[in-house]
């Protein structure tokens, strides 16, 4: 017979269940509580200042060694480009890690330009969804990735609430996910600002510690209540992001997703993920135990009946 006893089996089930129950709440507290590394850097994007010169796009192109663009970076005709029957403006792709789009919101005095790039979440969905751990959130605040580890599953592209990671579909042999890395390799880790921040003539982009930027953002709004909408996009969205926006027109008019949750994306999978160890580890043991117990019971009955026979 197997070495498992009824008592041993029951105590293992209780211990396993207790471990699952005790382990899960500790993790639950961790999700959403991470406000970024204390010295984490960030960028505040003040959309009221942007004039749509696209110098940031050009600077990114050179800094990241990206290929020549289709059109010059001073060509404003790209603002009229749309995709999916006019419903989609330009997006980041494998050859453009940042993109500026023009919006003409109702009630605004003129066009409003919005720069998009990776927002470098405090608790990135791309990172938590990556099963080969290709992503890293550095202590400087950047969300970087190791292309050598990437297997091209593109789960991060689905997970990202801002739809930023792009895939190098043009590469037949070694397609990988590509996105803005906060100029980590060439600048951020040496204490220098990203290339787009440095080139911006209007200081639309302010580079500093995230905690200082939050203070500055709220102070700008407080000092100029007529100029700004009272919201710092990225302060709480999906657990907070290193790149944050302030705007003079409602964020939803500029293509921002204003329905995003405050909790990190990982929180959505937490309940399911915390059940995985139980299903994979506890259930086999549980049902094996039931099987053994019922099998043992039958054997006992047979023995009993033979005993009775001998007596009779």
């Amino acid at each position, binding site marked *: 017979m197997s070495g498992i006893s009824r008592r041993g089996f029951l105590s293992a089930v209780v211990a396993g269940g207790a471990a699952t129950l005790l382990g899960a709440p500790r993790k639950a507290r961790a999700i959403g509580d991470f406000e970024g590394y204390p010295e984490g850097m960030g960028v505040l994007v003040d959309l009221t*200042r942007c004039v749509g010169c696209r110098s940031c796009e050009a600077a990114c192109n050179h800094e990241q060694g990206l290929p020549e663009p289709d059109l*010059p970076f001073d060509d404003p005709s790209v603002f009229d480009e749309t995709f999916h029957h006019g419903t989609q403006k330009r997006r980041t*792709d494998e050859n453009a890690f940042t993109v500026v789009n023009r919006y003409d919101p109702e009630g605004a005095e003129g066009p409003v330009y919005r720069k998009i790039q990776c927002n470098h979440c405090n608790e990135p969905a791309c990172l938590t969804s990556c099963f080969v751990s290709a992503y890293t959130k550095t202590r400087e605040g950047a969300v970087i990735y190791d292309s050598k580890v990437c297997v091209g599953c593109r789960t991060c592209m689905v997970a990202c609430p801002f739809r930023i990671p792009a895939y190098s579909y043009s590469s037949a042999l070694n397609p990988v996910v590509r996105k803005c890395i906060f100029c980590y390799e060439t600048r951020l880790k040496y204490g*220098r600002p990203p290339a787009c921040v440095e080139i911006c*003539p209007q*200081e639309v982009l*302010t580079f*500093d510690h995230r905690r*200082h930027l939050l203070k500055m953002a709220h102070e700008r709004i407080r000092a100029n209540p007529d100029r700004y909408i009272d919201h710092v996009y990225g302060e709480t969205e999906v657990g907070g992001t290193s790149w944050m926006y302030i705007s003079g027109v409602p964020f939803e008019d500029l293509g921002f997703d204003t329905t995003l949750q405050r909790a990190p994306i990982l929180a959505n999978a937490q309940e399911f993920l915390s059940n995985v160890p139980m299903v994979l580890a506890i259930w086999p043991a549980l049902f094996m135990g039931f099987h053994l117990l019922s099998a043992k019971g039958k054997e006992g009955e047979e023995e009993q009946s033979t005993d009775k026979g001998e007596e009779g």
Partner: protein
Amino acid sequence: MFGNWKWVFVLAVTLAFTVPAATQGSSAEMPASVLLDSLSHLFDGAEFDHNLHLDIAEDCADCHHHTTGTGVSDPVCIPCHDRGAEAVSVACRDCHEADPFSAESLREKDKRKDDYHFDKPGLKAAYHLNCLQCHVEMGGPEGCQDCHERNADGDAFYYSGPFSPKGEQASKGH
């Protein structure tokens, strides 16, 4: 003897033309034009016609904040902007840093994080925010090259002019 009188005459004529212009502003050393080229890299320096802007601006403080022209009235600002060293310097670069996001600048900024002027634009932004905002309001020139010509490095940077993309349009995603 007569030579000396000639020079006095020349001086008097010169003063007659220059003094009224100089007394328009508060500073006798006011320049007629300023070449703003300390940051020029992709664009040539901008030749700023000071005299032209004197005629347009209502007050020196429109551009120079509180360092010259009408003084400040807010009691919070007076200690620095009425008598302090900040009131003496009139050049943008004296207060606005050329490299506001360098590690050293951010370290210094961290030390004065409770300052009233914590959120102070760098020199490049001080120029552009101040000039461009007014140009838009007053109907002045707004194009990049209206104020500073782009040089060859700039053309290459923007893939423009002689550096325009020549190849076939790459496949477009989305």
